[in-house]
């Protein structure tokens, strides 16, 4: 305990010298500016939270996943999703050393979009959905380490149309509709290692080749749940805690 107190003091004392006045208003404006500059990229970070981009565990042929929580959103309610994985080839089945090949994909659609259109006279139409598909190759490089790499294509649509009678202005400019979207092809690479019986740990990088979108994921997963930290270093909210539910057969 003494060591801990001493360490805390050592770290805390110099911290006082470097304390700065945090300008929260300026920070908030910066965040708002980044969202407005590219709203679709901001929304896509939440889609990445629910995407299943780890390979099926060895011996499993197919699996399902749905997002429960991503970033600051209960994605199970805001962006309900269904993802699937299907193993086309088990590692070493056809030929020794030939990697496991999984097809991956998923779709989500927000009920909030329809509710907004139904309950507001100013909004005539809304769309807020997305999907992704791709494949993963995974190969064991030792009994405790499996590498995986692959490709995914992701797309997100967000649209809101306003009634002609609605007087909607954005920064003083009349707005009839907001129609935005995100689409990119991603290169996926990662490594997986067991943590215990039916427990796995992985780290992966997703890189969007057209938009240079960067996402890194660290996750722990077992039989039913995946807990993760998705890090979007160029994103608005850099760290997204993630909670997904999955079943693999």
């Amino acid at each position, binding site marked *: 305990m003494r060591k801990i107190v001493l360490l805390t003091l050592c*770290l805390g004392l110099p911290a006082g*010298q*470097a304390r700065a006045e945090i300008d929260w208003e300026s920070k908030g404006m910066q965040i708002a500016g980044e969202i407005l500059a590219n709203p679709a990229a901001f929304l896509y970070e939440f889609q990445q939270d629910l995407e299943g981009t780890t390979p099926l565990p060895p011996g499993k042929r197919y699996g399902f996943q749905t997002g429960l929580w991503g970033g600051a959103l209960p994605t199970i309610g805001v962006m309900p999703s269904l993802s699937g994985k299907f193993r086309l080839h088990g590692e070493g089945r056809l030929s020794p050393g030939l990697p496991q090949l999984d097809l991956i994909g998923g779709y989500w659609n927000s009920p909030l979009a329809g509710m907004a259109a139904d309950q507001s006279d100013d909004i005539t139409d809304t769309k807020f959905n997305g999907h992704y598909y791709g494949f993963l190759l995974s190969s064991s490089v030792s009994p405790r*380490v499996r*590498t995986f790499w692959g490709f995914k294509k992701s797309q997100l649509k967000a649209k809101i149309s306003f009634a002609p009678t609605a007087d909607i202005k954005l920064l003083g400019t009349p707005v009839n509709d907001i129609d935005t979207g995100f689409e990119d092809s991603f290169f996926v690479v*990662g490594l997986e*290692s067991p943590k215990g019986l039916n427990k796995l740990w992985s780290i992966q*990088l997703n890189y969007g080749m057209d938009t240079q979108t960067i996402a890194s994921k660290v996750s722990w997963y077992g039989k039913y749940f995946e807990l993760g930290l998705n890090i979007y270093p*160029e*994103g608005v909210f850099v760290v997204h805690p993630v909670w997904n539910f999955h079943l693999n057969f």
Partner: protein
Amino acid sequence: MKKLTLILAITAGLAGRLSAATAESSKIFTPFFDMTLAENGYMPSEGNIFSGGNINTQVGLLAKITEKDQVFGLYNFNYGGPGFAPQDTKQFTDRTLTHGFNFEYRRSLGGHWRVRPGISLSKDYTRSGANETWDQGLYNTESKGFQLAVDYSFDAAHNGFITAQFLTRSIEFPNYTDLFQEFMNPSVTSELSGGQQDQRLTQVSLRPNWNKFFGGVTYTMQKYKNQKVVGATGVATYGDTSEKQEDTTTTLDFGFHHKLWIFELYPVIAYSVHDSNQNYIRYKSIGDVSPYFMADNYSYKELSFSVPLDLNITSKWAVGGAMSVVKRNYESRLRRDKFNNYVAGEKQENTMTTLTGSIRKRINDVAMVRLSYSLVVASSNNEFEQYMPYNYTGNSFGIAYQLSY
């Protein structure tokens, strides 16, 4: 200057890692995977809080064709986000993105010698904010070149070997434009300003390794293809001189990584001499009719050292501390007061000290996670800080994952 730092770091880093992959004797194909992921929050005494991350991913495959012949391919992805950096290198908010490809052929000659010719391609993106597009970064580069390394093994039992390496890169800056040149010559902008940072980088190094001690001497030469040296008489002679910019950097470094009981120590010390023939003209304003000419503005000597120490409390947990210092003394550049006036007789000196405390947990035999806190103290006798902070303190808190196979 920030490009120099970036290019040297990338060139040295990638070239250094190439020899790190070794073939497992029983396998034809040996994968190489290394990923480091770090995310930090920063609180500087000057400016607002910000966050930044670093991601480095290396994926490689070593193929053993025969007992003596191997082929190694390596892809390197590197993202460097906002963060504190030594003065005169980059802004807090600058970020870089690099894709590097290296292909190397390895041939063993007898029991001691090995030659490793290779080629390299890389593409770098830069930007200073998330609202800019990567494709249009002023300092984006495209690089291609080749290298030849020769290893001599003198003590296999202690992994003792010496590596001599020659590498050359042609580096182009497709987006670079000289705003000053365009301002002075608005009618001929694109012809005059394009390609002024394009350069040929050549590097030779000699690096011995023995029993986890390592060091070496590295000499780097950058020959600019178009960038001319700024003349002494200011506007009228800008670009009129036929002398083109040439920079050289000589670096000596030494380090080791050893364990003694629960102590794990891996210090590194490096001393660099950077020499540039480029000069600088300071205009205080657009209409400044008597600009100040600073000859030999970019030459400096730099000492840097880092002393990290981990105490392995258990096989899983360790607490660590580290101190790192970067000290740069300019050869000729005078320091400036806060009004942008050069102070005669006083050369610019920058120092950046970082103290770090950390807790490390080993997740398994290939992965670890580290929580850290750092205090940064940056000081300089240069008081003109309108564009870049020179004197500040800063706190940073971070989490880092490292996975290596």
